[in-house]
């Protein structure tokens, strides 16, 4: 029985199909994307680690696969990659927690 899911690993290789009905926009995206990941003030390795952290924050399985490979191929160790994911997770967790101040303000407003 074929398992139906929204995500298919093979779809990562089909990413370029997004250019089929909007080739100019796709081309602009590609040029910008490739420029972003070139060495600049940050190294390519550092940028790949940031991308890996963001991939986890936005929970994109394609990006996680792609940037896990990219991080290894840029020379990062699994320890460094795991720390990058912790950074993403800490920001996500902290972002939830800091909204607790809003909760507390609202509770204060309603409470006697």
């Amino acid at each position, binding site marked *: 029985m074929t398992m139906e899911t929204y995500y298919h690993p093979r779809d990562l290789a089909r990413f370029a199909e997004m250019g089929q009905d909007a080739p100019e926009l796709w081309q602009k995206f590609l040029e910008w994307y490739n420029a972003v990941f070139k060495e600049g003030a940050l190294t390519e*390795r550092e940028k790949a680690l940031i991308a890996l952290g963001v991939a986890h924050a936005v929970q994109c399985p394609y990006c996680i696969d792609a940037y896990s490979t990219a991080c*290894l191929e*840029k*020379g990062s*160790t*699994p*320890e460094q990659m795991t720390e990058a994911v912790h950074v993403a997770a800490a920001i996500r967790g902290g972002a939830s927690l800091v909204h607790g101040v809003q909760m507390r303000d609202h509770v204060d407003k309603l409470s006697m």
Partner: protein
Amino acid sequence: MALLTLLNSRHPLADTAAQRATLAGLPLARTFEATVASAGYDRMRTTDIRVLQLNVGKRCNQACHHCHVDAGPDRIEVMTPEVLDACLRFLEGSAIPTVDITGGAPELHPQFRDIVRRARNAGRHVMDRCNLTITRLPNYADLPEFLAEHGVEVVASLPSFAERQTDAQRGEGVFADSIAALRRFNALGYGIEGSGLLLHLVTNPVGAFLPGPQAALEADWKRELRRRYDVTFNRLYTITNMPISRFLQFLLDTGNLQGYMDRLAAAFNPAAVEGLMCRSTLSVGWDGRLYDCDFNQMLGLGTAEDAPQMIFDLTPASVATRHIVVGPHCFGCTAGAGSSCGGATTS
């Protein structure tokens, strides 16, 4: 856990024909021949011979999971004195400037030191592909001093500056022994700028992915090895894992073979062809057979039919511009920044 070699575990891939058939059976977008032809190299030829690479045997004190030689403590093949003498006579009669001694652990060859002395007496540059841990064995503890005395360039394997990754590939405890060996080499002046004693490190990925950018990694490695272990070295060479022997077994066992070969083929870099090591290397096996590189040697792919096949048949002119034998595995040397025994082939 001790690892048996493919040969002694009677694995089907111990047969080089089975390896070649496995690689030939993979559906790739283009053959290697068609791919290099599209880059302007219709049928690749050597340019000259600048390196004579002697694979003096398959014996090794380690049994690394990725080894393309299928080397290990249970292998018995070593270069015979007759073959060795023919190699050195050929060298002495040629203008080849460099001898690259590899294995297995080449230092385990009973005549290793004779090879070094004779090649140095002939005025040739000598490289020793050293696994580092060999120097920790009691009978080889004076090896660093011997290499230093003869000005041998040491090209040492170390896949990662992290212990876990190194031990995962090369065996439990290898990292600690490797660091101890590197400190010994450093104490003799190896890897110290200005000493004249060259100590290069070779890193290959611990898994089915391409190596990182060599120059950037070298800076990271120098910083981390200095900070963590007070170890220094000259150059870092990045080498792509070749889909041969035990790494081929790993790729098959983990379901990574097709994806890895697709990755190598897709990463074909036309600029890497010019510096391919096969274009300027002659590789000799323990039994005297001739090959275009150590990888072809381990796949049983001898030199082209119109070139000499054995060291005994050889004259410098007869192999200088021979055709090069290629196959799908060659995508490993043209992927990304290129790969060779001297690291990346493009900057």
